[in-house]
């Protein structure tokens, strides 16, 4: 069944767009679209980026 889904090009493009919208929404809500948050991570004063990445990785692994 999933094979048929993978072959439907237009539907796949739509799923891609939808995934992107959700991903962008989450990134913005997480604050990682902000310059200060990114720089704060690299200066080791704000660990938001690492918290998001690690919780995403741990969830995704399951």
């Amino acid at each position, binding site marked *: 069944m999933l094979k048929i889904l993978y072959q439907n090009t237009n539907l796949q493009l739509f799923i891609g767009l939808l995934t992107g919208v959700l991903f962008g929404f989450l990134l913005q809500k*997480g604050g990682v679209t902000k310059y200060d948050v990114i720089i704060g991570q690299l200066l080791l004063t704000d660990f938001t980026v690492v918290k998001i990445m690690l919780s995403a990785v741990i969830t995704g692994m399951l």
Partner: protein
Amino acid sequence: MEYLSMVQWSPYAVGIGIGILSGIAFLLSDKPIGCSTAFTRTSGMIEKLLRGGFVAEKAYYKKFAPSIDWEWMLVLGIFIGAFISSILSGEFKAIWVPMKWSDTFGHTPILRWMVALLGGVIIGFGSRWAGGCTSGHGISGTLQLAVSSWLAAICFFIGGIVTAMMIF
């Protein structure tokens, strides 16, 4: 509904959301969430537009055909999603020079633009060289426990931290 207009969510909640989203993307599309290949394809499309169809014959563009695909739509969606989110929380604004930057380097936009452009070129080069960016390697690769991705993600942070410490 209040959640939608909040300025910031807990980073753990966002992370779990991204993890689940990645799982859904693998299931429904058999694709990892990643962005940098879409930029390669776009550069191919631009080159094709300016220099003609023979561009598509290049070995690199045979591997990464210059056309709109799943990942390209994903990148488009990221812009839309982030835009919706920032509008809902009333945070949307266009800033030429971020605060942190102007504290150290002053308010001149030109310098900021030049450095941002240079940074973009280096990121583009590096992510193609490594075969992934912060999302492709850092999230989609590491959650599959790919050794190359863990190495890449650790090096992203080492490089970023050293550079940030040097310039600020």
